[in-house]
């Protein structure tokens, strides 16, 4: 495998080439949403300019073309995540909707009092609130696998996980990559442990899908949720992988056109999955543009992207450690770091840091990162996050460090 020409790839992302507050933009917020290469924007435009029609209902040329493209996108997505059957891919708005689909459909049909839903303390609100609420509605008990360790050695308590995995656990949902801690969990290991007690597994792959190879068969999960916009694709499209047998046994999530086979005035027969879960006109254009993103990432190579992002994050973590009074969050030694670093400065609150960095043209994220309970546990009201993608460079990290030095100086008053 030849090393990609990273500098040349950077030129593929038009949004990056602009000034912000008079300085060249340094975009370090890809964990929130990634920038898009021109091929994705072109695919989106090409669909609307040349092929736009509704799918699955028309018999005319454009409609058939749109339907073919939409189903080709499903096939491509199945291949991208390693699913054997394209019918195991449901298109959704993204990770949040995918998890809500499983919680409301599978959860409402299968959970009852006495059952346990197990999640972890490092979950994004998207993989926490749906389980919390479905547990409240069904009478199931919600339990958490603790996050343990000091700032720079954080991780799931695997002994506690094994103790918590009792036969009452019907479902175990966890994040593959944490958007706050920069930890990548060993999804295959976690699923194997859960399978021993017969629990259904749900993997939130929002942070890993565009950054490393993700293969549902290698992981051995029952469901996997992801968002297109975090993998250089458009917003408004994402997916849910679900094992076919499970999907086919689940009741519909939303009701309407596109998901029915026979409708009578007083009863309806539903289509099998995946159509059963795609009520209404689907997001055809974004699904088609998502294909361009997947092709782009695979052409660069997901292993290469993972190595690049992690190298930058490690470089950043080492440089950040030099700043006085800094707390850096991260995984235990030996566990992979996602392409991001979260940190807190003693004298400057995350929001002040983000405002100052923005004046230097640097886009960071500051706050609780949709992870309020975890931040509370770590004793951090907020943290600042720099996240990296294939288009970021060491020079950009250097600019971040210069900016942060100035911020520390300003707020500590020395």
């Amino acid at each position, binding site marked *: 495998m030849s090393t990609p020409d990273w500098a040349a790839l950077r030129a593929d992302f038009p949004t990056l080439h602009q000034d912000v507050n008079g300085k060249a933009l340094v975009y370090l917020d890809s964990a929130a949403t990634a920038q898009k290469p021109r091929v994705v924007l072109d695919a989106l435009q090409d669909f609307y300019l040349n092929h736009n029609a509704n799918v699955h209902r028309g018999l005319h040329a454009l409609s058939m073309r749109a339907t073919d493209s939409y189903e080709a996108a499903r096939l491509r997505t199945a291949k991208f995540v390693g699913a054997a059957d394209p019918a195991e891919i449901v298109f959704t708005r993204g990770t949040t909707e995918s998890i809500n689909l499983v919680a409301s459909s599978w959860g409402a049909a299968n959970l009852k009092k006495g059952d346990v839903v197990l999640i972890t303390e490092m979950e994004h609100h998207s993989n926490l609130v749906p389980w919390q609420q479905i547990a409240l509605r069904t009478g199931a008990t919600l339990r958490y696998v603790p996050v343990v360790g000091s700032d720079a050695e954080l991780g799931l308590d695997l002994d506690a996980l094994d103790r918590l995995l009792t036969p009452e656990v019907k479902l175990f949902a966890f994040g593959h990559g944490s958007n706050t801690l920069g930890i990548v969990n060993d999804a295959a290991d976690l699923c194997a442990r859960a399978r021993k007690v017969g629990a259904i597994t749900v993997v939130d792959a929002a942070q890993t899908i565009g950054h490393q190879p993700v293969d549902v068969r290698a992981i051995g999960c029952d469901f996997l949720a992801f968002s297109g916009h975090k993998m250089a694709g458009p917003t408004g499209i994402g997916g849910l992988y679900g094992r076919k047998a499970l999907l086919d046994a689940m009741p519909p999530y939303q009701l309407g056109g596109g998901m029915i086979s026979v409708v009578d005035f007083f009863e309806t027969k539903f289509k099998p999955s995946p159509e059963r879960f795609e009520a209404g006109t689907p997001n055809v254009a974004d699904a088609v543009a998502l294909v361009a993103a997947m092709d782009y990432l695979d052409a660069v190579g997901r292993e290469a992207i993972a190595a690049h992002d992690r190298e930058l994050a490690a470089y950043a973590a080492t440089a950040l450690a030099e700043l006085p009074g800094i707390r850096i969050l991260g995984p235990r030694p030996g566990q992979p770091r996602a392409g991001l670093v979260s940190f807190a400065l003693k004298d400057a*609150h995350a*929001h002040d840091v983000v*405002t100052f960095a923005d004046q230097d043209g640097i886009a960071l994220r500051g*706050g609780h990162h949709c992870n309020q309970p975890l931040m509370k546990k770590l004793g951090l*009201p*907020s943290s600042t996050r720099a996240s990296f993608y294939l288009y970021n460079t060491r020079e950009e990290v250097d600019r971040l460090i210069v900016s942060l030095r100035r911020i520390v100086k300003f707020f500590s008053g020395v």
Partner: protein
Amino acid sequence: MSDLTDLYQQVILDHNRRPRNRGKLPTANRVAHGDNPTCGDQCSVYIRLEGDRIAEIGFDGSGCAISQASASLMTTQLKGKTAAEAQALFDNFHHIVTTGEAPEEISDVAAFAGVHSFPARIKCATLGWHAALNALKSEPTDASTE
């Protein structure tokens, strides 16, 4: 960073580093809590109302320099005031942070005029004020159980 030094005037940095009236008031009979869900900033305001005047006021919470300094300055402004006077002071403060028009006379609140160029931060500047006004509107609490 000229815009920013405007925003983070000495007054703000000073209140952020050495907040006034920080801490829970055991004698408070009016309490309210405010938070800013987008950033996680939090502020609780404790007031002891005597007759219709604020006899004592304190705050605690966590947040950015703007929110903490603003809450601190707010407590120094509201002590001894009635609810109506507090509302008028807030209206004045709100005008400053949303328009950038500082009053003629030199005052600490004028330091917050720079906030108006950073619309995302206006909510930070008004967090403590909103909590205080809500506390004044709230039902009396039993100070001993608070």
